[in-house]
């Protein structure tokens, strides 16, 4: 009880440091709270609208047509009173007003949607039981963006495959949509009975056939899901309840918010560095007090208790200003992210988030300050006697005391990213940055300490020497400001490099990407393309298959009932539940290279006992756990085939050339049922549109992706993500500024005697201003430049070794960040030093410090 009272009293009576500690930690928590609010609002939407998102209680789907026996099996398993709606989803092209566009077709029956509704531009709301004008006549409902993009109106007639369809409604809001993928392929709805006449679905076409089910009240959908999984023999059949489907459909959003969380952890980490520096100062000021307490009968453990209680209290109190700040930030954050989701987000801070923040702030603050708090034990109160000298600061040399804080951040990163790998890599990379900045910071200090100039004024020389000799405060500034400026710069560097790479590679980028080309359309298609002078067009076969076993171990479907899965578990479950597209070629394309193993040994002889040679993309191999020499058994549309991995390939996916995860030796699957994909080389915009129109007219079943438009849309979407990540980085910079202010204020306070002595010795106020400003400005400039340098190194490494792209230098954003951070830095330094600079020297020199 005494410890608690003393801890509170100590904090209240040291308002300056306490306030800075709280402000610093609060800034670190703001980002975390904003991201949590965003995550919560998405989860709430998904939970509340799970059935509307799936438009059913249960969905049974497969990437082919269900057989009659499978349909019957599903119906037999369902309880009496269940209602079934059949839906086909596939990409296709529509043609209107001399323009064509990739769209996602949903061919539905009259009972669709079994849950949820479609809100039309005409203010009409259509639910499952309502009568719909879509059926009985060739009509189409289209997403409202097509109205603007293609100039359609209600009553316009457009072409979809062999059908001429009249637009009867524009859809404003579709309850089943969870992620607005930059309008890559707007949806249209048609009557399912028109499918045959449309000619869009042919052998090998890419489509999904779903049986949507509304169960009678009280029927257990999870149990039925398990029953259906065990009864339906084909592992490629996917069964989802509304809960599993909503989780899956919001995967991209969750992935994004997970990464956002990681950036918010960086802000928290920066705040923690600042907090530990401030706490060190706080304890240094309290050393005498602690020693007095020890003399008066307080045990060493109790003094540690007091120190730890103070960190807990400071951490917990920092949640309150963080909540206030988060409330101000959330609307900005929500407005940046609202375009990403089709539903509006109104993030609010939940009770659970507040509780987590309290735990995070208290425990985080306790662990980060632990090394200093424990060090208090080593200070003997005998220092109070006249012949001894009280130490001026608390420092620790036992770095193992930092391990709890390290494990705390590690655990937090894993929880926030929901991935052991991502969380671990993130923490290691962060640690790497800190070490890199520490090494560079020490080198900078060394330079500053050695700098000798006979012409430079005394104040500048001594100023730099001072910074070089105060290692811990200098390193705190270098690490926090350096990391913050690195964060600010790394994303723009990546973006600029990607943009420049796309621009310079434009000539090599395909113009159009064609898929679902039928075998019998190959020759005709080449003839159609010939007048357009696009040279030789390679068509790449695509054979659907699934993996049966790896090294004799069955590669079975994973039925997960857990709601909490790590990203790796999700990825693993998805790759097992999905089929795999195979291709074969006798040579590597220009966008791929072998990183391990050997090339194919020519064509495969079907009579040879040798296994078929397999080439696997290197990252896919990592994900699935394949290595050279592994045996893989495939089921290729009913025909078994065994192969052996002979090489791992690196693919430059950004080349947008047709590439595959798994390539088989030529001659092995040449006769299997297949479709083709092709990439039409770069061509002028007008000619591209003309060709696209021609292709849509002649081959309505072939889907076409306009790559220029798609990359533009993806970059736009990425920009929205980038801004929200930048917002988190700005919080990091603010934390860095609080640290800089704290360091300036502390150093100035500790050096009051020195500064006032200089005044007595004749230093002018301007000289003293330079003396103080130069030290901290050099530090700020040095830290920002080091951060930029590290951002260059990291972006270079990411582009070169992860994306396999060239790095391009961009100076505009670094320049802005240097000017911005220095501008704020000057104000911060002036604010932190002005009081001491104006003090009357003798009053300080006479007083007992």
């Amino acid at each position, binding site marked *: 009880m005494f410890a608690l009272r003393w801890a509170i009293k100590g904090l209240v009576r040291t308002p300056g440091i306490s306030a800075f500690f709280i402000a610093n930690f609060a800034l670190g928590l703001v980002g975390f709270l904003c991201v949590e609010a965003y995550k919560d609002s998405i989860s709430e939407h998904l939970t509340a609208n799970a059935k509307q998102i799936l438009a059913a209680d249960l969905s049974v789907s497969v990437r082919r047509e269900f057989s009659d026996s499978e349909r019957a099996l599903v119906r037999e398993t369902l309880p009496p009173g269940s209602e079934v709606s059949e839906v086909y989803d596939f990409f296709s092209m529509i043609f209107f007003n001399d323009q064509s566009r990739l769209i996602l077709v949903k061919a539905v029956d009259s009972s669709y949607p079994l849950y949820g509704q479609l809100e039309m531009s005409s203010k009409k709301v259509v639910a499952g039981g309502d009568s719909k004008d879509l059926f009985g006549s060739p009509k189409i409902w289209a997403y409202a963006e097509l109205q603007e993009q293609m100039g359609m109106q209600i009553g316009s007639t457009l072409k979809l495959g062999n059908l001429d369809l009249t637009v009867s409604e524009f859809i404003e809001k579709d309850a089943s949509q969870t992620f607005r993928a930059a309008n890559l392929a707007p949806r249209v709805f048609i009557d399912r009975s028109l499918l045959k006449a449309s000619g869009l679905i042919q052998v090998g076409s890419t489509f999904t056939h779903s049986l949507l089910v509304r169960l009678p009240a009280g029927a257990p959908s999870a149990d039925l899901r398990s029953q259906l999984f065990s009864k339906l023999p084909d592992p490629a059949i996917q069964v989802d309840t509304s809960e599993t489907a909503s989780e899956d459909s919001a995967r991209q959003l969750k992935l994004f918010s997970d990464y956002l969380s990681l950036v918010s952890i960086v802000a928290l980490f920066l705040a923690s560095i600042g907090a530990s520096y401030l706490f060190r100062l706080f304890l240094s000021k309290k050393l005498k*007090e602690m020693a007095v*307490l*020890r*003399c*008066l009968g307080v045990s060493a453990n109790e003094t540690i208790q007091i120190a730890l209680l103070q960190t807990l209290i400071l951490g917990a109190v920092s949640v309150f200003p963080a909540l206030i700040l988060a409330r101000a930030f959330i609307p900005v954050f929500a407005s940046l992210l609202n375009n990403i989701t089709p539903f509006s987000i109104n993030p609010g801070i939940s009770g659970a988030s507040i509780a987590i923040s309290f735990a995070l702030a208290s425990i985080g603050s306790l662990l980060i300050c632990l090394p200093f708090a424990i060090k208090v034990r080593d200070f003997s109160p005998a220092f109070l006697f*006249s012949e001894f000298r009280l130490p001026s600061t608390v420092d620790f040399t036992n770095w193992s005391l930092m391990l709890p804080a390290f494990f705390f951040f590690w655990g937090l990163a894993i929880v926030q990213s929901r991935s052991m790998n991502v969380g671990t890599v993130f923490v290691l990379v962060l640690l790497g940055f800190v070490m890199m900045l520490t090494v560079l910071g020490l080198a900078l200090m060394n330079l500053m300490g050695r700098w000798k100039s006979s012409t430079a004024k005394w104040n500048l020389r001594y100023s730099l020497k001072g910074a070089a000799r105060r290692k811990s405060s200098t390193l705190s500034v270098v690490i926090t400001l350096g990391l913050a400026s690195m964060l600010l710069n790394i994303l723009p560097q990546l973006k600029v490099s990607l943009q420049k790479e796309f621009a310079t590679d434009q000539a090599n980028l395909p113009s159009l990407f064609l898929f679902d080309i039928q075998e019998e359309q190959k020759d005709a298609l080449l003839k159609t393309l010939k007048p357009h002078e696009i040279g030789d067009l390679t068509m790449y076969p695509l054979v659907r298959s699934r993996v049966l076993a790896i090294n004799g171990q069955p590669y079975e479907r994973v039925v997960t009932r857990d709601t909490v899965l790590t990203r790796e578990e999700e990825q693993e479950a998805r790759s097992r539940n999905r089929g795999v597209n195979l291709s074969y070629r006798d040579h590597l394309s220009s966008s791929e290279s072998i990183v391990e193993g050997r090339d194919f040994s020519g064509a495969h002889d079907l009579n040879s006992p040798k296994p078929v040679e397999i080439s696997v993309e290197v990252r896919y191999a990592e994900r699935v756990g394949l290595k050279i020499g592994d045996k893989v058994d495939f089921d290729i549309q009913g025909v078994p085939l065994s192969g052996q991995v002979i090489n791992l390939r690196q693919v430059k996916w950004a080349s947008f050339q047709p590439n595959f995860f798994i390539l088989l030796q030529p001659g092995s699957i040449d006769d299997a049922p297949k479709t083709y994909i092709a990439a039409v080389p770069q061509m002028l915009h007008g000619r591209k549109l003309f060709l696209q129109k021609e292709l849509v007219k002649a081959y309505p079943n072939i889907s076409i992706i306009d790559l220029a438009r798609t990359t533009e849309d993806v970059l736009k979407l990425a920009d929205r993500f980038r801004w929200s990540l930048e917002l988190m980085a700005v919080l990091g910079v603010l934390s860095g500024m609080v640290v800089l202010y704290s360091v300036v204020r502390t150093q100035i306070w500790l050096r009051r005697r020195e500064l006032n002595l200089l005044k007595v010795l004749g230093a002018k106020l301007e000289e003293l201003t330079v003396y103080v400003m130069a030290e901290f400005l050099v530090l700020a400039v040095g830290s920002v430049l080091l951060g930029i340098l590290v951002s260059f190194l990291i972006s270079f490494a990411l582009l070169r070794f992860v994306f396999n792209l060239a790095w391009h230098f961009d100076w505009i954003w670094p320049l802005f960040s240097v000017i911005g951070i220095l501008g704020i830095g000057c104000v911060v330094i002036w604010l932190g030093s002005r009081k001491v600079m104006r003090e009357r020297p003798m009053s300080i020199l006479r007083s007992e410090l």
Partner: protein
Amino acid sequence: MSLRVEHLSKEYAQGEAKVAVLRDLSFSVAKGEIVAVVGESGSGKSTLLSLLAGLDSANEGQIIVGDTDLLQLNEKQVTAFRASNIGIVFQQYHLVDHLTSLENVMLPLEITKQSNIRSRAVAVLEELGLSHRLTHFPTQLSGGECQRVAIARAIVSEPKLLLADEPSGNLDTQTGEKVMSVLFDVVRKHQITTVLVTHSESLARKCQRELFLDQGQLREISRRER
């Protein structure tokens, strides 16, 4: 409560080498007696005080306060013993800056969870002539007042042994004399055994006995030597 020191030795490690600060010291102080320890800077006076206060451990010997050998107690026991039996006055006062005079004096009673904390603290401060300074913070007090608050804090829990380290070292002669006169009055009144470390010969002469510490060894200075 008497104090008896037997064969006390203390060494510090300085790199590989060991430096003997106190060598086989033995002396005793009777109950209520005031003894001065004098010696040059670095002679080991502060080390001796920190050992007598139980704030440091010795290499050899005994420090018996009443019936208790301090060096046989563990850290928890020595902390409790110090809180109830030993008061310390420092040269630099070492008051807690953010506490008022009254709060500073109440502090030892709060730590040892005693009763009538406020009234006892007020009584001691009144006894030391500080009744008008109860709510003042250390920064608002003169050096002499600070030291009187420090004395009040040291004696408020009625210790049996008082250790004073250069109590007038930070004060001018006149103020120092006044403060010491107050200190002597109080310790005599309460019969507190006192060990006082000082450089001041005049102050040492006011004590009942003087011990001279030189190069880690102690000898008694007889009044005739003066």
